[in-house]
């Protein structure tokens, strides 16, 4: 177990190193850099100011020196300076992280609390009208593009309720914020819940055909006990894997959702910073997301051990 943890941690560090190199190189391969963009609008520019920014960003240094400088600064908690707004990058990034985390967690909760039970119901009521309905629902969840669904929701709110659930004013309480985020969370979580629902259904159907389920039924166990205590517990393993992967993929869905619902989160901010080639912001944010994804996968691996005692890792 200890050896596994060490091995897994080593792999995590290696993955993060690979990610950091990739992020750094990709950002420098795309055309244009922040100093060009800041001075883009033609007309007379101040060359001394441009040279100063290039020097501060280390753009005049070899790429390896630039990389080393970034990583060592990052290790010391120095995220650099956002040249578009002329503020420290940490001040720009920090307030946005909680917003996105809340949205992602809500979306994940939404997808699990709808996806898992509906998947179970669909499997238990296989080939009934309810099953057909749930399968169509899950299929539409997978087929509808997030931005389209989000816009439909907004249109419905404006048309039928006369207001729009977007982030125009910062909410003044935690619960108001949760209320405000629940609509976009549902929009982005709908796709994940559909995926979870389908996976739960197929996994449950497989388990429900096992001998021990038949035995449980013949011993007089109630349908609830059979379905939830015996079947679901064994069917949930692949679902946990997919929940872990979905947690990582959510960030992609959040870019669109944050844009449509005008949420000042990390995902939308990242896109805008990438367009402006705001290196300190993009590098650090992508690295942050990479860390979250790697840790989410690590957590899923650990959850396996808790959920299935049969799984043992060789020492």
């Amino acid at each position: 177990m200890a050896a596994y943890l060490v091995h897994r941690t080593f792999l995590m560090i290696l993955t993060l190193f690979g990610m950091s190199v990739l992020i750094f190189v990709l950002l420098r391969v795309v055309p244009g850099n922040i100093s060009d963009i800041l001075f883009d609008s033609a007309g007379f520019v101040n060359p001394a100011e441009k040279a100063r920014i290039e020097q501060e960003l280390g753009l005049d240094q070899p790429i390896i020196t630039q990389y080393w400088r970034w990583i060592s600064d990052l290790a010391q908690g120095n995220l650099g300076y956002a040249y578009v707004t002329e503020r420290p990058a940490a001040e720009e990034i920090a307030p946005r992280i909680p917003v996105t985390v809340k949205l992602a967690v809500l979306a994940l909760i939404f997808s699990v609390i709808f996806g898992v039970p509906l998947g179970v119901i669909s499997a238990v009521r296989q080939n009934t009208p309810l099953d057909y309905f749930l399968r169509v629902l899950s299929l539409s969840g997978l087929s509808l593009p997030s931005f389209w669904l989000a816009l439909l929701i907004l249109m419905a709110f404006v048309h039928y309720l006369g207001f729009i659930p977007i982030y125009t004013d910062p909410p003044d309480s935690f619960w108001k914020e949760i209320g405000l985020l629940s609509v976009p969370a549902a929009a982005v979580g709908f796709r994940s819940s559909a995926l979870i629902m389908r996976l739960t259904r197929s996994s449950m159907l497989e388990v429900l055909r096992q001998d021990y389920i038949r035995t449980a039924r013949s011993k007089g166990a109630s349908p609830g006990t059979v379905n939830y205590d015996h079947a679901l517990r064994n069917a949930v393993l692949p679902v946990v894997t997919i929940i872990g992967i979905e947690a990582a993929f959510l960030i992609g869905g959040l870019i669109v959702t944050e844009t449509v619902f005008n949420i000042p989160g990390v995902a939308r901010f990242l896109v805008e910073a990438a367009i402006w080639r705001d290196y300190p912001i993009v590098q650090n944010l992508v690295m942050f997301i990479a860390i979250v994804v790697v840790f989410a996968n690590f957590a899923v691996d650990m959850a396996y051990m808790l959920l299935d005692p049969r799984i043992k890792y060789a020492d």
Partner: protein
Amino acid sequence: MRLHRVAVAAVSLAGSVVLAVPALAQKPGGTLRIYHRDMPPSASILEEATISTNMPFMAVYNNLVMFDPKEKINSIDKIEPDLATSWSWDDGKTKLTMKLREGVKWHDGKPFTAKDVVCTWDKLTAEESDKGDRLRKNPRRVWWQNLKDVTANGNYEVTFQLNRPQPSFLALLAAGYTPVYPCHVSARDMRTKPIGTGPFKFVEMKRNESIRLVKNPDYWKKGHPYLDAIEWRIIPNRSTRILAFVAGEFDLTFDSDVTFPLLKDVKAQAPNAVCEARPTNVNTNLIVNRDAAPFDNPKIREAMMLALDRKAFSDILSQGHDKLGASMLPAPEGVWAMPEDMLKELPGFGDVAKNRAEARKIMEGLGYSADKPLKIKVATRNIAVYRDPAAILIDQLKQIYIEGELEPVDTPLWHAKVARKDYMVGLNLTGLGVDDPDVNFYENFTCKSERNYTGYCNPDVEKMINAQSGELDKEKRKKMVWEVERKLAEDGARPVIVHNVANTCWQPHMKGLVLQHNSIYNNWRFDDVWLDK
């Protein structure tokens, strides 16, 4: 009896006036809520060349003079005092002396003096070698090329010394792009925490979220502004922001944000909304890099110009509302509009079928055909207002054996790319800060201007541009301007495809906003705006 009737009428009139006053009186207070389409690159109007900065931040500043805010058409004949209370020209029309308003304070409490005016124009005319606190960018430096010197005569008088007479000079001072900056605040702070003398003080700008301005209680114009604050919310997604306006979240849309197809939706869902269509004095134009082969051959450029069907652009993009014209804004809004009969004679403005037949002949002469087309990339900014006409352009160029591929370029990279001339053919939008030929010609068509994206350089035309710029007789100048425009069209310098028309909408309770019909960059002071709710 007659006297009695007159008396009754007079009493009735007086009564109605008395009764009408409360209904007409501006109500003070309230927060004006406006959505913004994107994040402004900075708050420093002098350093930027976009309505994204100009519209939210003009209310922070004052100019020396301004176009009459009650008039829809900006005109040199209708210029009002702002920080300058009066002005006079010397006999040679090269010396402009302005008396400045006394007792005006910057938002940080420091007094406004002539020194601030001198500082502002020192920054605008700084040379590369100049030291000190300089602007990072200066996109309109070419506006001030005829300015020799600015001097302060005591604390409340300044003199602008010109090299030669330039009747447009006062109009340049009145532009929304020409606020006065404080001497004691650095250029960096002006980009992030601007200090002005205007009706509203800057509070904060949250990246990609919001901009907040509050009433300046010490504003020199007594009783103004009426509003307590202005809040801008940045909503990059157009569908979301239009829905938010329809839902009543905002009092005013971003300027010219409502296209004609969208206008139908807005009017259907918010029938009480007030929407005004107006020319933006932003034109859609074709840019061709004359240094890149094969476009160094004037014949190809001529063929491309002849391939344009301007009416089709207007019909598709704005349901026929866009205007057709030469380089300057067409009538009735355009002060310098070329007469219709003259416009028809310009190359590329006649019968489209005939023009295209001629264009094909030119292309065939150069060895191109349907089987052997000229393959090009058409670069444009990656936003709908650029991409849509670029797609139509590609379609129209097919008619003359040119096969175009769209090359969308991210907004922050666009100006740098075309200024470097790192393109072959492009679809561009050009906005004019002032409806004046000096602004248009010097920025876009003179040899040394960095915004001359096509690299067009004709010393004869430059002489004509300088001549019209110095002409004091307006009618004579108009004729000279049309002659320059004719020559630019013949040379295919930067063919204007259409002059854009778009809509701005507001809720009926918002009062006092006068949209300017020949420039979107002016009159965003909001000091006459009030909320009737």
